[in-house]
């Protein structure tokens, strides 16, 4: 796949997630006290406010909750990537996750479609968690 013009700049809160991606592992943060999964990463649990947390390997399974098809490049550097699908995935663990739906024609994507997080080979060997039906 074509590499992305923008890549994450991990910080102290998000590094575990992106370190997992480098290994091709999809991790989610979970509160150690009330066991609620959360995303995006945060220093405290939005349910119980505890700072105790752990990173667990997620199933990567989920359902397309909604999506758009970007048909025109919205920024310079994205011309070769259009059209692409930006979707919100309802992860089986609970949190929602934004990613691209790949391995399918954009016009065939539907709300409710099941799939799984994958780490397809990118042409700059970066590792991004994408969603495939």
């Amino acid at each position: 796949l074509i590499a992305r013009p923008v890549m994450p700049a991990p910080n102290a809160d998000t590094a575990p997630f992106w370190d997992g991606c480098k290994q091709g592992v999809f991790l989610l943060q979970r509160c150690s006290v009330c066991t609620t999964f959360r995303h995006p990463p945060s220093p405290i649990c939005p349910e119980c406010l505890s700072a105790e947390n752990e990173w667990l390997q997620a199933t990567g399974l989920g359902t397309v909750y909604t999506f758009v098809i970007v048909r025109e490049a919205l920024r310079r550097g994205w011309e070769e990537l259009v059209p692409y699908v930006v979707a919100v995935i309802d992860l089986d663990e609970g949190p929602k996750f934004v990613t691209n739906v790949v391995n399918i024609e954009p016009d065939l994507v539907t709300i409710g479609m099941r799939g799984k997080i994958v780490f397809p080979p990118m042409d700059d060997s970066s590792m991004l968690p994408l969603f495939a039906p």
Partner: protein
Amino acid sequence: VKEGLSGRYAIVGVGESDVGRRLGRTDLALHLEAATRALADAGIEKKSIDGLMTRPTMAEPQFNYSASLAARLGIQPTYITDVAMSGASSVAMVLNAVAALEAGFCTAVLCINGDVQTRDGRSRGGLTSIVEDFEKPFGMLGAPVTYGLPARRHMHEYGTTSRQFGEVAVACRMHASLNPNAVYRTPITIDDHQRSRMVVDPFRLLDICPRTDGAGAVIVTSAERARELAQAPVYLLGLGEFNTHADVQYAPSMTSVAMRRASERAYAMAKLHPRDIDVAELYDCFTSVVISTLEDYGFCAKGEGGSFVENGRIRLGGELPVNTGGGLLSQAHASGFLHITEAATQMRGQAGDRQVIGAETAIVSGQCGALGINACMIIGKHAN
């Protein structure tokens, strides 16, 4: 200052984050540590916090930062503000907290300030945030994507159509054609809308407000003083704010959103109902937002916004003229301020060719955070 204000409000909880140099922690982590310590110190439940004020930090500036902090704390406040006044912001937060409490916009305010000033390596700079790391690499690049996600969801849940989006674009353009101070004044048809190219599906070009230059201003004073000045007063009857989320992709619902409870608060203050409203100026960065707002503002049931905008109902001469100046879609963006100036102009009866005859009340929506942050205002020709 109002008589009796002195001593009426109090600080009930204090919290400090750990301090140091090169702590290696994020601004967000320090803010949340101070906040949770203040909550614990006060012995107050987080659900009692209905006001939040903070300042986006220099190193990791972020749009709608107060809403983002509310999301991280798992609360939905009725009053939030980003106080961007540098060194004065801390005391200014408390000053503004008192104003909001006195008005009754909220009952307990959490004020948070501070930042990370020492770090190894360069700061990120620019307008970036950790949230954006979970957007930009995936091509979630700006508002058409952010607002397209709830728009598609609305279509899925309620059968709303692109032609119905088009009705909003056509109404705004018709009204702009009658407004000498509008950028886009050539009338369009539904067919023009349907023929405009798909930019971010489901949004066509004519669903998206264009980039424009412009600004607005108003002066607010007491009703007594207003009556001594040059123009007929336009009375502030109702004000309400609500915040359900900072980032729509993580919102509990994408279709039942901040506008509902913001407008409920404004209607309650004004002691008015949707049926009492003559003109609606609704934030319209995208056509779909107007449809959601009409539902949440009580002009029709949830899910019926699409059919509500059909048959000229929101055009001049219709049952509820919407965005009579042309809105963001056709007049100018100005962060929605021209919705306020237009509503006031309508109340004064000075809107010329686009005057809604006999209009005595108007409702105005200020919206951001992809439907998560809403400020609602009801104004009128007469004081209640």
